[in-house]
């Protein structure tokens, strides 16, 4: 089936003219039509546009052109503004918003010939680890559990990851603020890469927490992610925080191997509460790397325990300010009021969901006079210490290996009454976000219930190449061939 191909295999098939981009796109649109009612991975499907893009790609292929992503159907997280295609950020407040511009990352993908199937569901404004906060309904994980409970795909890029895992798309764009690429990739049994902060332009991506947000790819293989990131990344003068550096050949880096690399094991990531299967998978991962010729080194990231608390000050603080623009005055949803204040209150009360409102309130609180020093300022100081932890560790090792998440996918509805339990999903992913260093999650095994578990590789700033090299070795060693129950072509 065309939908079973990896992105690289599909690319090669198109180049060999084994099938057309139109056929490839149609196969994926069929999968979307068949599965989306059940999984809710897409908020908006842009089928006509996708078909037109595929036809254009076929014309180029016929003319002998070969863009890196020419004719390859992708899902776009609904946080990326797409010109002429509704962009909601998973929020009622942006429900009617059709951007008149294209984000830099998606423009780069279009430049390289990609076909966009539609906009993938996500936690509202990317705030969540379960995809339960989307105003357009939760996404269901294509993986299922023996007890039959519907599982979350993780978040916030849950729609992107579910779509890719269920073979509704070859790959998808995602964004990561505290783990929103890596955790859902782990929950959905696919690969996901959060590059270094500044590697991809944030221009045109609906902002959650500006100093943390970073775009990255999710796909079924590490190599697919490398191809996608190569297109997504690059300096953008319209984003002052984007890095003016050349984009390396990430796909080539996947073939490097790990011989001679020093891989760190941060001791603070160990805990007695860690499920045995995750501890076992971690040890297995280290063994694979050792077998590949890497040296395993114990390292310390002493401020790890402050990561989550710090994150839940910095990210809401920035979000409280970033979300002020959703006021009903210029775009998006408006609920009229007697005066301006009432218009604001009604628009924002009806437009934002509970989790977004919670974070706006937390953020407003930690920035307010009298609390700023105790919360925001202190959090920034701790953040500097967390970065120093990584800098010190990378003086001894080339990369770090950890579990991606403390558990496999949980059931929809779990942890909903306890925000802190929900936030703990991000305990392994948040420190790297705070430090801005690159990370990757690669599917490496199953838990006793048959659900996928990921391993996380973290690297030095702007050294995604080593991260890809390590990730690719783990991928080959793990030989993860398990399939989710709900997927294109599977019996219903």
């Amino acid at each position, binding site marked *: 089936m065309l939908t079973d191909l990896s992105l690289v295999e599909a690319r090669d098939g198109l180049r060999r003219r084994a099938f057309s981009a139109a056929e490839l796109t149609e196969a994926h649109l069929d999968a979307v039509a068949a599965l989306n009612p059940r999984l809710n991975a897409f908020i908006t499907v842009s089928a006509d546009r996708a078909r037109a893009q595929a036809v254009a790609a076929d014309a180029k292929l016929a003319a002998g052109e070969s863009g890196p992503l020419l004719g390859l159907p992708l899902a776009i997280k609904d946080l990326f503004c797409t010109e002429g295609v509704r962009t909601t950020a998973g929020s009622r407040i942006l429900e009617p918003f059709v951007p008149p*511009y294209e984000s830099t990352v998606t423009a780069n993908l279009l430049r390289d010939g990609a076909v966009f199937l539609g906009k993938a569901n996500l936690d509202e404004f990317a705030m969540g680890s379960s995809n339960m906060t989307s105003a357009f309904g939760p996404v269901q994980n294509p993986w299922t559990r023996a007890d039959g409970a519907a599982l979350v795909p993780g978040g916030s890029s849950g729609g992107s990851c579910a779509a890719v895992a269920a073979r509704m798309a070859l790959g998808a764009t995602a964004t990561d603020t505290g783990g929103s690429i890596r955790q859902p990739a782990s929950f959905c049994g696919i690969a996901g890469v959060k590059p270094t902060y500044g590697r991809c332009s944030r221009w045109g991506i609906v902002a959650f927490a500006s100093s943390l947000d970073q775009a990255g790819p999710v796909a079924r293989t590490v190599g697919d992610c490398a191809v996608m990131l190569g297109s997504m990344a690059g300096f953008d003068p319209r984003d002052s925080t984007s890095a003016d550096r050349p984009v390396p050949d990430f796909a080539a880096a996947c073939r490097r191997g790990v011989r001679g690399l020093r891989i760190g094991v941060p001791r603070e990531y160990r805990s007695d509460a860690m499920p045995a299967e995750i501890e076992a998978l971690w040890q297995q991962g280290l063994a694979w790397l050792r077998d590949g010729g890497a040296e395993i080194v114990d390292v310390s990231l002493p401020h790890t325990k402050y990561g989550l608390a710090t994150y839940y000050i910095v990210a809401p603080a920035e979000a409280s300010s970033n979300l002020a623009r959703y006021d009903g005055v210029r775009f998006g949803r408006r609920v009229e009021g007697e005066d301006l204040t009432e218009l604001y209150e009604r628009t924002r009360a009806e437009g934002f969901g509970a989790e977004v409102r919670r974070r706006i309130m937390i953020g407003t609180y930690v920035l307010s006079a009298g609390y700023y020093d105790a919360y925001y300022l202190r959090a920034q100081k701790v953040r500097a210490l967390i970065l120093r932890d990584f800098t010190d560790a990378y003086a001894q090792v080339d990369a770090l290996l950890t579990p991606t998440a403390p558990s496999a996918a949980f059931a929809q509805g779990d942890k909903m009454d306890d925000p802190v339990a929900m936030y703990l999903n991000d305990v392994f992913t948040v420190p790297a976000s705070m430090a801005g260093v690159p990370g990757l999650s690669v599917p490496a095994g199953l838990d006793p219930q048959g659900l996928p578990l990921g391993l996380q590789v973290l690297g030095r700033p702007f050294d995604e190449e080593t991260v890809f090299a390590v990730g690719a070795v783990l991928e080959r060693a793990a030989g993860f061939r398990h399939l989710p129950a709900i997927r294109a072509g599977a019996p219903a």
Partner: protein
Amino acid sequence: MSYVIKGQDGPWELVIGLEVHAQVISRSKLFSGSATEFGAEPNSQVSFVDAAFPGMLPVINQECVAQAVRTGLGLDAQINLVSRFDRKNYFYADLPAGYQISQYAHPVVGGGHVEIELSDGSTRRIGVTRLHLEQDAGKSLHDQHPTKSYIDLNRSGIALMEIVSEPDLRTPEEAGAYLRKLRTILRYLGTCDGNMEEGSMRADVNVSVRRHGEPFRTRCEVKNVNSVRFVMQAIEAEAARQVEVWESGGTVEQETRLFDPARGETRSMRSKEDAHDYRYFPDPDLLPLVLDEAWVAGLRAELPELPDAKRARFVAKHGLSAYDAAVLVADQETAAFYETVAAGRDAKLAANWMMGDFFAALNRTGRSIGDSPVSAAALGQLLDLLADRTINGRIAKEVFEAMVETGEAPASIVENRGLRQVTDTGAIDRAVDSVLAANPDKLAEYRGGKDKLFGFFVGQVMKAMAGKGNPALVNDALRQRLSA
């Protein structure tokens, strides 16, 4: 420090500080490429960044930074090579992002000063605390529709320099002199056009009163005053109000007030309790602003001569009085005009002509120096005709008026109207003879000791010569004949 308010229980002195918002002259906005032209159709100069659409990001405009640094250098201020942009968060319909990007904690320019000249000839140095860059907000129009407010975002995102003075000002006159001087400096630098009526320069006025020798008392801020005159009036009104509050046993509360020029009073806009909590924090969309020292040095090297230096030069080089020099340098174009007139000529005479007949003519005709009816070159030619004695001083005034009226060159006016000075001693002698012959009684009186009549005879001779006699020669001839 003679200005005090005479209260019931003794005099009060004023403490005044000004925060001036000066719109930066630049083709585009502080963080977007939109145009900045004044008076354009509403919402015609708005980018998605200015309207704070989702995912839009600010990018600093280097020209605006250069303008701020030039201004800092012109205020003899410290240039901070590392500064930072913060977000000032508050909700308003004409503030699209819900925050203003400003430099709260780390401004681009630190301490500097402005020298002000007062009417008694004294000067004072007024401290400048800081200058920072920030975005302007848009404009809310509440009078266009019975139930709706209209929003114009053309101004949204335009670069402003907020220039904060120390509380060094003590009188309304000093505040006026400070504003005017600051405006002159900004105009010299080309960093702000200083047009208060168009809103490109606005002042927030901080006023408190105290008994002599006391520490500062509570101040009130009078927001958004838009002319020098109103600033001075607002200070007087607000200080008088505060004196009344204190003397009636009350307490002045820190608050923001508005000045109503029609009523000549200030009124409360919002009290301290209603003050916004702006939740300042560093804007994570922007990196710290790091300036290269060599780049700053380059801007310094390109600075124009500033008013204080020019005034000192006019005094030293041209021998002008401090007052005349200050008047001539108050406007860069006037100073340049003067220098053209004075070049290679009697510089004091040039100044006298500028300060006298020339300014009077501008006033009378309602013209500015930029479209003066008499060019600097033409005025210079007139002075040349005086210098080479082609005409005398009295005729020169007549020629100047003709120049104002007709725009003709002075030489052709002199020729066409036959105004050339008569230096022919024969003609002068003949005129003297006829005047003396026509006034035998006066001649007798003069000879009888009434010396003052000499002036009468000069006047009569000049009149007989239609004003064209060379005054020195006429004097000589008269003196000779009368003493004979």
